[in-house]
């Protein structure tokens, strides 16, 4: 079953890939004079918190920013393309990365864009006074002194970035970092125009069409709180010739059923979200429905401080006791049953998929592990679950989480004879409870923002703020320490080793890997998506 779903997803991805390739190759012929403008009606499904790249921390804001701004490079489906930088080079020791900017780069107001704008944008993002929610990401960039400057320990002048000249941007790293160049495609690393940023505080400039100067394929022309926004083609964009859309009307309709009806009546061409109940039908019938793997995992935390979860045999039995294929089948949104913590889509140093290569650690995703689970439980002194204390499975209030929890509850009961009660808490309350460790088993979910398994595995290092199970294995900690200071083969060997340790110790039960769904009208061609999730309409067009 698992294989079939992966196959289905692969096919979908392939189809999507062809759609991209098709759109990309058939460059739209020069529009006939006086032709109607090419308009895309897109439902973003939410009113973004902010459109300021340095302050943003959410995917909806990221989707807009990836169309209004552009970083040094662009990443499409995991592949790196030139952005503001036409080329770049990494020194032999891997510690210096130099980006060469296109001298013709301009802001949407026509003023020249130089390496200094990148220095300003990056330092502003690092500056603790900016209080960017994404400040933590500098830890993973390995940019010299960036993390220390973000914590306010050293001055911004000591950060290892500089403009060698107007068109040369140089970054010094403290350790060679494989994913560094791809990371610069992420919204946090966009250039911003100082005069705009300072004109209206707290990112308000980015929602004010008069001030929102940007450097991407589109610029903001209207914004209505809670209603929508309009993007217009930025004629000053270096690759404007490839941009096939003149106007993008963005709506913030958060009720998926309403948006879906509007899609059916032709009022919307592109949806970021569809009603969950429609997904099985769309998978079967609509070739314009896409399911993409998201770089993240849905899991349950064992509270490792509790005596009842001390025995690894118990944790392994509970992990083997659930049929993850069935959960994924019931969810019916194309999710991939999780065999480990690292999701599909992360290439290692040999270009192999980390997820595939890592295997399943002897934990089948279907119910074939139940016999072993029973045996382990008996060995641990709880034959058929007898004598094992009843515990609480806690999740944050949502229909989806409830469904998964109910399935798991039933599987543990029927497969292992272990009783659980379900408890749910409102999201913000739940986060407090989980962080404080006031639970037996709790739901967890983690999405990463850069193309390296470290972005996931690092959260279970002792002392990490997101180490909810309070897991502490010195070997695991040291494997990750090694991974963070090496690159290439030794980096990935350390990561494979780390996941081995994690899946032997099982402080968590991986359940499934997240997916993202999208529905596009057949007339929208040539759109792209970055592996980190940002939608990219820079080469899209409308073909009726």
């Amino acid at each position, binding site marked *: 079953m698992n294989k079939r779903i992966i196959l289905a997803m692969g096919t979908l991805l392939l189809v999507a890939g062809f759609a991209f390739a098709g759109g990309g190759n058939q460059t739209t012929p020069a529009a006939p004079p006086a032709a109607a403008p090419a308009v895309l009606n897109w439902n973003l499904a939410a009113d973004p918190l902010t459109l300021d790249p340095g302050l943003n921390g959410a995917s909806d804001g990221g989707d807009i920013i990836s169309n209004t701004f552009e970083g040094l490079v662009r990443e499409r489906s995991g592949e790196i393309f030139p952005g503001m930088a036409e080329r770049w080079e990494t020194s032999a020791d891997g510690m210096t990365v130099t980006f060469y900017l296109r001298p013709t780069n301009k802001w949407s107001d026509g003023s020249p864009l130089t390496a200094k704008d990148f220095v300003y944008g990056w330092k502003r993002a690092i500056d603790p006074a900016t209080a960017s929610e994404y400040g933590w990401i500098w830890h993973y960039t390995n940019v010299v002194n960036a993390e220390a400057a973000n914590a306010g320990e050293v001055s911004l002048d000591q950060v290892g970035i500089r403009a060698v000249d107007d068109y040369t941007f140089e970054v010094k790293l403290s350790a060679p970092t494989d994913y560094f160049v791809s990371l610069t495609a992420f919204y946090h690393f966009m250039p911003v125009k100082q005069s705009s940023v300072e004109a209206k505080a707290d990112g308000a400039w980015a929602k004010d069409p008069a001030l929102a100067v940007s450097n991407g394929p589109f610029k903001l022309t209207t914004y209505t709180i809670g209603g929508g926004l309009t993007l217009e083609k930025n004629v000053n964009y270096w690759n404007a010739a490839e941009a096939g859309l003149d106007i993008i009307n963005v709506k913030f309709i958060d009720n998926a059923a309403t948006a879906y*009806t509007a899609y059916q009546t032709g009022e919307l061409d592109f949806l970021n979200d569809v009603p969950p109940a429609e997904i099985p039908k769309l998978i079967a019938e609509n070739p314009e429905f896409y399911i993409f793997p998201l770089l993240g995992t849905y899991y349950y935390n064992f509270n490792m401080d509790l005596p009842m979860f001390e025995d690894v045999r118990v944790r392994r039995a509970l992990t083997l006791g659930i049929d993850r294929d069935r959960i994924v089948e019931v969810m019916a949104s194309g999710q991939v049953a999780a065999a480990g913590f690292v999701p599909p889509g992360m290439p290692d140093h040999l270009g192999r998929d980390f997820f595939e290569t890592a295997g399943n650690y002897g934990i089948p995703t279907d119910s074939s592990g139940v016999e072993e689970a029973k045996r382990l439980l008996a060995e641990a002194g709880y034959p058929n679950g007898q004598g094992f204390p009843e515990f609480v499975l806690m999740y944050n209030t949502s229909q989806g989480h409830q469904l998964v929890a109910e399935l798991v509850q039933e599987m543990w009961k029927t497969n292992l004879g272990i009783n659980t009660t379900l408890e749910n808490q409102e999201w*913000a309350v739940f986060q407090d409870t989980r962080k404080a460790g006031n639970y037996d088993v709790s739901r967890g979910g983690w999405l990463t923002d850069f193309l390296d398994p470290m972005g996931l595995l690092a959260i279970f290092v002792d002392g990490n703020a997101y180490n909810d199970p309070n897991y502490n294995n010195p070997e695991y900690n040291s494997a990750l320490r090694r991974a963070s200071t090496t690159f290439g083969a030794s980096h990935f060997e350390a990561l494979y080793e780390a996941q081995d340790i994690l899946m032997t110790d099982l402080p968590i039960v991986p359940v499934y890997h997240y997916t993202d769904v999208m529905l596009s009208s057949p007339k929208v061609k040539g759109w792209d998506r970055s592996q980190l999730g940002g939608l990219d309409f820079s080469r899209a067009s409308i073909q009726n």
Partner: protein
Amino acid sequence: MGRYFLKRFVYSLFTILLISSVTFLMMHSIPGGPFTRERAVPDEILKVLNAKYNLDDPLIVQFLNYMGGVLTFDLGPSFSKVGTSVNDLITSGFPSTATVGAWAVLSIILVGIPLGVISALKQGSSIDYSVMLLATFGVTVPSFVIATLIIYFFAGQLGWIPPFGLSTPQSYIGPVVALSGYSLSFVSRLTRSSMLEVLRQDYIRTARANGLSEFSVIMKHAVKNALIPVVTYLGPTIAAIMTGSFVVERIFAIPGIGRYFVESVSNRDYTTIMGVTILYAAFYVMMVLLVDIIYALVDPRIRFEKESKN
């Protein structure tokens, strides 16, 4: 009457103050804060954010600062829309909410009351039964079901109305029907039962015995008196409808303020919670005051002086 009005006005201000204080206290006592995220914000950043929005001050200082702002009509910055003030949220969303709300209120009054009067006068007839059947339907079926059905049939299947927004006059039909459905049905049932009761009163018989025309008996004596409970119900209802509905605005994707009543709480967007609460409270006490004034106009037996003696 002037003195009574002044006294009531001062009471209303106290009511709003009380509501604000209780809301302020309650929202600060629930776990989580405006910067609670799936990926928790690191402590250093959280400290900077809290200092920036003065969330590190003692509660009482925060409350006094906030109420000081309210007096100058400054509702503070929204936490969930960085760089946007709560004043902006309300001024940009209120016109849509209030327009839909005003049409809903109008249809409640202009459709609900006449339906109730007619079915009372035709008690037991097929008109009465069909009006009451419809009214029962309206009271029992929740607005989200009505809204979803309207979108599915009239927007999706028939294409008569746009599925979202307020772009054309037709686009108001869905939200107005969904928003007024419950209250309209309730008002027609209330009017009907109140009318039936009034029609049995002695003074109606007296009026008829005095030879007044049936029209004048109904309009001048019966309806006017039957409306007292309706007016009582309508006051607070108008306040609720004019400040929008989370469900209706969400389903029809109307950029109004109704959504903030719910969203601000789950976002722990403190200033927005306070802003919309104060707006609703002010509307509410104003309507209650208005209802009291209308009482006196409708029913001569109620006089202000009588109450103000207590």
